[in-house]
């Protein structure tokens, strides 16, 4: 399977350096409409940096990124989010002091019809919209089995629920592309298989593309239609999972990892 012909997201020749370190080097990457693409590679390969490039947290030193036909160059992260790219973070970033409910509710603000003036006047339009958001938030929380936690502070949730809540919050922005950064990290096997079901469900129900960074090869194999392998910021291989994971360069990169402190692909992800 090759890169999609008219992709939803396309990176061309993207490079970024931190001091002397080239974290991502001349990367070409394409994600098709409603595709489940995996981005894998040893620790420090530059996967999270790719997410930060796509979402506008970093600016590429060279290359360009296009989403749904338009360039993302120079856009702020909030503008990129409003175009339809949502993400989760490797180290969960919820709004810890806010309730589970409000964490999701606030993500609805991108599509609000009412603004500050409506909030002050609190007329019928405003109340109708708030009520509809409330019911949509509750519906999403129920779907993802977080409904009973709705009033709890986000930081008080168990770890797995926090990861799930972060995905729900991202979905509430109604993205066309969802970036997941190591969602299975720290999960036990049963949570992992639930996560796999969840990712496939999300992609089908919300008709979105998913770019998944994940260390757990069982999850990657179970979810992704296509893989891109990154090592030292360079693309090593690309294709269907069975081929890519047998690719000599990929095997070597992961074998090399076993002799250094890097993480092995098949080993359960720690932390």
């Amino acid at each position, binding site marked *: 399977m090759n890169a999609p012909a008219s992709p939803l997201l396309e990176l061309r020749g993207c490079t970024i350096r931190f001091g002397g370190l080239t974290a991502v080097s001349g990367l070409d990457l394409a994600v098709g409409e409603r595709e489940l693409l995996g981005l894998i590679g040893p620790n420090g390969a530059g996967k999270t940096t790719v997410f930060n490039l796509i979402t506008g947290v970093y600016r590429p030193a060279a290359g360009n990124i296009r989403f749904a036909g338009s360039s993302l160059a120079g856009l702020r992260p*909030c503008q990129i989010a409003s175009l339809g790219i949502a993400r989760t973070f490797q180290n969960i970033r*919820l709004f810890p002091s*806010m309730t589970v409910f*409000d964490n999701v509710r606030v993500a609805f603000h991108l599509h609000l019809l009412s603004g500050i003036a409506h*909030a002050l006047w609190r*007329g019928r339009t405003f109340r109708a919209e708030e009520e509809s*958001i409330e019911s949509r938030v509750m519906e999403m929380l129920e779907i993802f089995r977080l409904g009973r936690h709705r009033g709890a502070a986000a930081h008080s949730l168990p770890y797995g629920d926090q990861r799930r809540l972060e995905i729900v919050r991202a979905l509430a922005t109604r993205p066309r592309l969802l970036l997941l950064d190591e969602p299975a990290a720290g999960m036990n096997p049963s949570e992992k298989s639930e996560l796999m079901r969840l990712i496939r469900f999300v992609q089908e129900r919300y008709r979105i593309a998913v770019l998944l960074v994940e260390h757990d090869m069982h999850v990657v194999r179970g979810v992704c239609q296509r893989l891109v392998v990154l090592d030292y910021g360079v693309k090593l291989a690309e294709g269907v999972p069975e081929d890519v994971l047998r690719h000599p360069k990929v095997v070597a990169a992961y074998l090399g990892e076993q002799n250094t402190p890097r993480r092995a692909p098949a080993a359960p992800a720690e932390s």
Partner: protein
Amino acid sequence: MMPGRRFLLLLGAVAAGSVLSLQSHRINPYFLDVAVTVAINVILAVSLNLINGYTGQFSLGHAGFMAIGAYIAASTTMFWAPGLLPAASSPGFIGMAVFPAALLAGGLAAGLAGILVGAPSLRLKGDYLAIVTLGFGEIIRVIFRNLESVGGALGLNGIPACTNLFWTISMAALTIYAVTSMVHSTYGRGFTAVQDDEIAAEAIGINTTRYKITAFVVGAFFAGIAGGLYGHFKLSIDPRGFDFMKSIEIALMVILGGMGNTVGVIIAAILLTLLPELLRPVAEYRMMLYSFLLILLMLTCPQGLFQPRFFRRLLSPFLRGSAAPAEDPPRPA
């Protein structure tokens, strides 16, 4: 369009203010003074709470906004309005028509300054932002001290006595209404999101710049109104009344009330205004005792007075065994 329930509460407070104001000749003037001061401090603390408490931008420049409102409003009633409408300089007309316009002008001018003072918050955080905003407040004060047209270091005297219970209670109610209405909405949860995690906020499409500037502008607007009320209540203003100690006093009300807890901040504003009054009998030890009580409060409840946790902690020595309040489980790294 039908206004919401909160709006009717606001109208109720305004009505109560006008009744009290009409009956104010029956109220002991000392209590009247204290009541007006309390209401002005409530406006200041609740508006600062939007910036510091909800949006998490630690600002120590609130007295500067208050100064702008006080000077602009006083200039309006004393110079500009009589200059424009010489016929309309009867005290009644000034009190009923010019004064609200003066308050509004003071608020708008302060709101404009809020854009300037808020701008550093786009780059600075925490202590650094506090220092820069404190500097801004001082700069504003120094500018007024050097403006001879508003009396320089001597300040302005003979400001018309327009402030009464009606205006202060109405404006306090309006401030509380505006801040709580903004914050309690899907749009308004964005302020707290910015405080909690700016990167995550941007990632769900929250324009953190716009939210921070909005918080500064709205907070400054109401501080400006408080300044206008203050000037037309004290009848004379001078730059020393708006120094950084005033900013710190307001910040203390927010901290003691519990950042981002409007009810707590209102109670703290009332208590901290009344405390020096209640301590009057101990005359020369008053300020010493006041400072001591403040330190004690800060040490015992750094999270703010008016949180359930505080009361549990207060009671914990008496409930041996269940000493410390149950903490939330630690966040996984």
